């Protein structure tokens, strides 16, 4: 592997790939309006409707040990357009999961605004659906009723919900498993049910919180590929959080790099690899360059910020 080549790619990152990098030094005053507009790939026209808009978002939390309020997320701004797959990467504990929980409406923010299709987010809602790292299926419900759980909570009758969910049951290839109990399924299958439960609600924005982190390495690769195909088929707007950089690059149209806590946006990187993508692209020079580039941003920040 010609490492010199990768280096060049990183040094000239502003040129080689359309990247906006925010100098950590300027951070307090600034949050650059981040570039849904810069260099949009041909598959995702920039004139598409903004589905999720995050403006000046600040999330604090009460530190139970000290009793003080600490800042978890500090002035984050970005937009996600319809059909875009955007991934947030960062060190573990950097506040990216807190951020996603805020988008889901499970965590209150102190400042700024979250809008989904123009509507301000104040709590959980049917326009978003979250896939957690743990499958968290109701163990006493069979797979079928687990998939329709979100719809039923929205007030739909079980048989209507089943009809509505059937499209995704087929798409995620869960048909035939509807009468199994969760404990009869492997971890990967359980996570697919979790995904189907979220998709069945047909949310405007799908939120994925490290969805494959609890799976073994092989299952994870398979699930990544499956999610890739699924997203290319249904064209959902997705916001994912992960700490696997290669997973982020493989799946995403854009990768947003969060700094160490309190989290702010270090970079918003377009992934110009054309779709449909297959897992084989992980072997390409372009892919490795992008992974390396993202990694060096995270690493640089960790060093500046006084280590991990």
């Amino acid at each position, binding site marked *: 592997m010609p490492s010199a080549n990768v280096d060049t790619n990183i040094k000239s990152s502003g040129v080689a790939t359309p990247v906006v990098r925010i100098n950590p030094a300027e951070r307090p005053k600034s949050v650059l309006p981040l570039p849904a507009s810069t260099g949009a790939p041909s598959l995702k026209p920039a004139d598409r409707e903004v589905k999720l808009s995050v403006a000046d978002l600040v999330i604090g939390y009460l530190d139970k040990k000290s009793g003080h309020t600490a800042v978890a997320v500090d002035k984050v701004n970005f937009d996600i357009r319809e059909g875009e797959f955007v991934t947030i990467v960062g060190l573990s504990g950097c506040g990216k999961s807190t951020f996603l929980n805020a988008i889901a409406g499970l965590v209150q923010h102190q400042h700024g605004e979250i809008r989904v299709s123009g509507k301000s987010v104040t709590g959980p809602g049917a326009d978003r*659906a979250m896939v*957690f790292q743990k499958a*968290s299926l109701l163990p006493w419900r069979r797979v079928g009723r687990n998939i329709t759980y979100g719809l039923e*909570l929205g007030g739909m009758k079980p048989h209507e919900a089943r009809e509505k969910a059937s499209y995704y049951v087929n798409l995620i290839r869960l048909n035939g498993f509807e009468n199994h109990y969760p404990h009869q*399924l492997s971890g990967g299958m359980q996570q697919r049910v979790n995904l189907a439960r979220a998709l069945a609600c047909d949310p405007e924005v799908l939120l994925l919180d490290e969805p494959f982190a609890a799976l073994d390495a092989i299952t994870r690769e398979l699930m990544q590929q499956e999610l890739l195909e699924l997203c290319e088929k249904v064209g959902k707007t997705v916001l994912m959080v992960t700490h696997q950089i290669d997973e982020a690059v493989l799946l995403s149209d854009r990768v947003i790099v969060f700094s160490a806590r309190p989290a702010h946006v270090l970079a918003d990187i377009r992934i110009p690899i054309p779709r449909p993508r297959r897992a084989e692209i992980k072997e390409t020079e372009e892919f490795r360059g992008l992974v390396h580039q993202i990694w060096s941003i995270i690493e640089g920040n960790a060093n500046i910020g006084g280590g991990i």
Partner: protein
Amino acid sequence: MNLTVIPKSYAAKREKIVNFLLGASVIVAFLVAWELVGGLALVNPLFTSSPSRVLKAGFLLIQDGTLFKHLAVSGTEFLLGYGAAIVVGFPVGIMLGWFKGISASFGPFIAAMQATPRIALMPLFIIWFGLGITSKIVVVALSAIFPLIVNLQVAMSTIDADLVRVARSYGATRWQIFRSVALPTSVPFLITGLRLAAGRGLLGVIVAEVFGGSQGIGYLIQYAGATFQTDKVFAGVLVVAATGITLDFTLERLGRHYDRWRGESAVH
């Protein structure tokens, strides 16, 4: 080299049969010894009775209708008291577990009540409710209610926080979380509570009837004992034991039915 492989299911079945035979042989040996102690006049059978005498006394009690008369009274007392305990204990236990404030207020009071031996209050219940079935129903209800309350309270504290978070993320109301997560969680605890409560309730019926009154299996046992009819005493005790075993078995089966989602093996 030939290895005979015994199928796992067959081995398990054989172990089950062997265990059954082992258990049964001890019981049979006990019954035979009991019969011989009286039959060989080692001890006066007036004291020990014997299996054959107990059976005979039992048949006589069935024949003249005495057993069913008393069984009907005891059964009514048990069912009404047990029913009242469920009707009150289930919601109280759930509320204690679900609402932290209620738990803080009533928890110590309930713990104190639970520590009080209910049967010691029997003289008071007789003064308040008389020698009829009402005082017995009260004892049964008070005996059975606490295992239910405590079990359901514990059930609420074992609710999986991840499931609650998922429900919330789908916009579930507190009532929906209660119905779809808390109630199903409580089922195995409810069954355990019901089993414990059945045992306590049955004990309550018999002791209350022994204590005072003129009808019921407890009275039958007490009266037979006071008049040296040991055969009848044993027959009465046998009926109580059989009832207890049947109740527990039924509730256990019910529990297994509602627990069938909790399996051991995973199919990949």
